């Protein structure tokens, strides 16, 4: 693949192998959850890692995607691929409006505007009748792929999720390594300079924002079909915090960091669930450790030790 180096190619091969092998070793529903969050984190990473924009409201797009997919699959009986695509499109539509408003501000103020807008979406989801309030949309049917293949079996839907994840992941990766991606990095490093070189930086930022929100919507929609439920959890601001945690822990601005972060955070939530409030304490300690000891994140540290770009 153009723009990637050999170590990344090897890592890609490993990733694909893991995606194929892991459901026979691990609990498939767990792996699907990891894949959905990994895709969400990778979409978020496109903004923070490559354009330098910290969005503190990404749950809005993830959650809206989940609601739209769940609602269209349950009420209209749409096939899963169309429902998920609609989830992504609604994420992108919301992303266009929010992006257009938010990219006028930088740094902290960008984070605060996205947080505030996401809070409004949360309020909308609490009040709007179609979201089912606190119950959420439950008993969402997984449906039949292209109207023919039933996805009720966990392994059947697993392959669909795996394909969606890999396509989304490659798309994001391709964007990062394209000429468009180079301009994004230039904006991250020095925006005035990029502007003076004649790039309309706002347009670049907006396009990156829309792409990121599209993928976030896809990730949310896929998750809602896997679990058959879309709830307020998906739009709550703590979900925005969680995706920051995943990306930070895995490694900001690394290709594979968000995947690793999603894996570790999801595993932790899964295996610490019997220990009650210790989940929050552990999450907090990980945040602190990341900031103090390894700011490059797990993949970032590994890459730095081995002098690789991952």
């Amino acid at each position, binding site marked *: 693949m153009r723009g990637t180096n050999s170590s990344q190619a*090897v890592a890609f091969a490993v990733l694909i192998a893991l995606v194929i092998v892991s459901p026979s070793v691990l609990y498939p529903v767990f792996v699907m959850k990891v894949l959905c969050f990994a895709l969400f984190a990778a979409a978020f990473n496109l903004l923070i890692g490559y354009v330098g924009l910290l969005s503190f409201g990404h749950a809005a797009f993830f959650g809206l995607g989940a609601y739209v997919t769940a609602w269209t699959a349950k009420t209209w009986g749409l096939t899963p691929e169309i429902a998920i695509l609609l989830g992504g499109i609604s994420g992108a539509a919301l992303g266009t409006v929010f992006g257009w408003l938010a990219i006028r501000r930088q740094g902290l103020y960008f984070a605060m505007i996205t947080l505030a807008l996401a809070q409004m979406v949360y309020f909308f989801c*609490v009040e709007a009748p179609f979201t089912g*309030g606190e119950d*959420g949309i439950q008993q969402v049917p997984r449906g039949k792929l292209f109207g023919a293949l039933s996805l009720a079996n966990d392994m059947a839907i697993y392959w669909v999720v795996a394909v969606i994840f890999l396509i989304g992941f490659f798309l994001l990766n391709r964007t990062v390594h394209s000429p468009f991606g180079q301009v994004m990095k230039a904006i991250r490093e020095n925006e005035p300079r990029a502007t003076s070189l004649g790039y309309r930086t706002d347009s670049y930022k907006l396009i990156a924002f829309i792409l990121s929100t599209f993928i976030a919507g896809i990730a949310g929609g896929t998750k809602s079909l896997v679990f058959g439920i879309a*709830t307020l959890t998906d739009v709550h601001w703590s979900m925005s915090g969680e995706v920051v945690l995943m990306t930070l822990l895995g490694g900001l601005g690394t290709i594979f960091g968000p995947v690793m972060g999603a894996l570790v955070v999801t595993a932790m939530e899964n295996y610490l*669930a*019997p220990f*009650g409030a210790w989940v929050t304490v552990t999450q907090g300690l990980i945040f602190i450790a990341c900031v103090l000891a390894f700011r490059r994140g797990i993949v970032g540290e590994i890459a730095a030790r081995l002098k690789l770009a991952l």
Partner: protein
Amino acid sequence: MQISRRTLLGATAAIIPLAAAPRARATDSVIKIGVLNDQSGPYRDVSGLNSVACVKQAIQDFGASSKGFSVEVLSADHQNKPDVGAGIARQWFDRDGVDMIIDVPTSSVGLAVASVCREKNRAYINVGAGTAELTGKQCAPTTIHWAYDTWMLAHSTGGATVKAGGDSWYFLTADYVFGHDLERQTSGFVTAAGGKVLGSSTYPFPSTTDFSSYLLQAQATGAKVLGLANAGADTVNSIKQAHEFGLTSKMRIAALLMFITDVHALGLETGQGLVLTESFYWNLNAKTRALSMRIKEKTPNNMPNMVQAGCYAGSLHYMKAVADMGVAAAKASGAATIARMKAMPTEDDAFGTCHIREDGRVLVPAYLFEVKTPAESKEPWDYYKLLITTPGDQAFRPLKDGNCPLIPA
């Protein structure tokens, strides 16, 4: 090549601990009970680890080993999120071989877990959730609902308050399904008894801590009763603030869902005179006292409330059904186990002898209590005076009104 091998090793090293995690296969003579509830949020004290202790007490009292099988207990925190709860339930069934799930407070999570249990054909005893939908439109052959529901609370507390002259109401409602349910059902009883509902304030849940604004609005309507359609910490806060603003001199407070653990948090000074409904009180009779003392050895800072007592009674009755039908048959079908439980009358130290209805409703008696004054309270946790007992067959929504699809119309 060396590099790629390292990358590979690093990646696999991260996977191994997950793969090595216990993939327990349920052996034939082991029954697994999963206690799924809130262990970190607003309903932690209402259910939480004390519910787990109650299930363990039931196992001890039942003495399963002498009946030829052993019982294991798992527990997890659902964080009051339906997706988290449904996810844990799925994993427990698919991977850990859990046979029955009990407790599950918070209506939305209770409903989500009910549909997973139905799909996987495993037994489900809900105790902690309030919604009457569990035995109504969303009833299932795998579901039993134990200690209380919104209809019973509205009927008992709401009905008694109207009878005592409280004929005009203002509701303070938490803006989520449980709050709306409770408000709607109570309003029904109030208007049916000739009373009026003068208004309501729906406040954001769960982030509201200051209720003063809503209290003033309630006062301005001149209603005689302030109906609290909320639970847990919100109820405690709104009562405290009602006292502060002098509402209690003109209005009567009807706390529609309140547990003894909430009264403990509120203190008798503020809580005295409140009227509330529970289906269990530790000091009700000799049996409940003895039971509560046994449980208190496990949970020194807490006396069981109706949810925790329901976890005791529910798991006890479940184990009786398992012993009766055989472990293999119980593990094979949750619906069959639930059907056997419905066929046997319940008998335990917490609720006495009760009947389980076809829709899954356990017909426990509802007790209307008044909270004692500090002077009347003789010992720690001596909080309640019994006012009225509603027998189990009258305490809950009549079978025909629930529209449960299991019941032929």
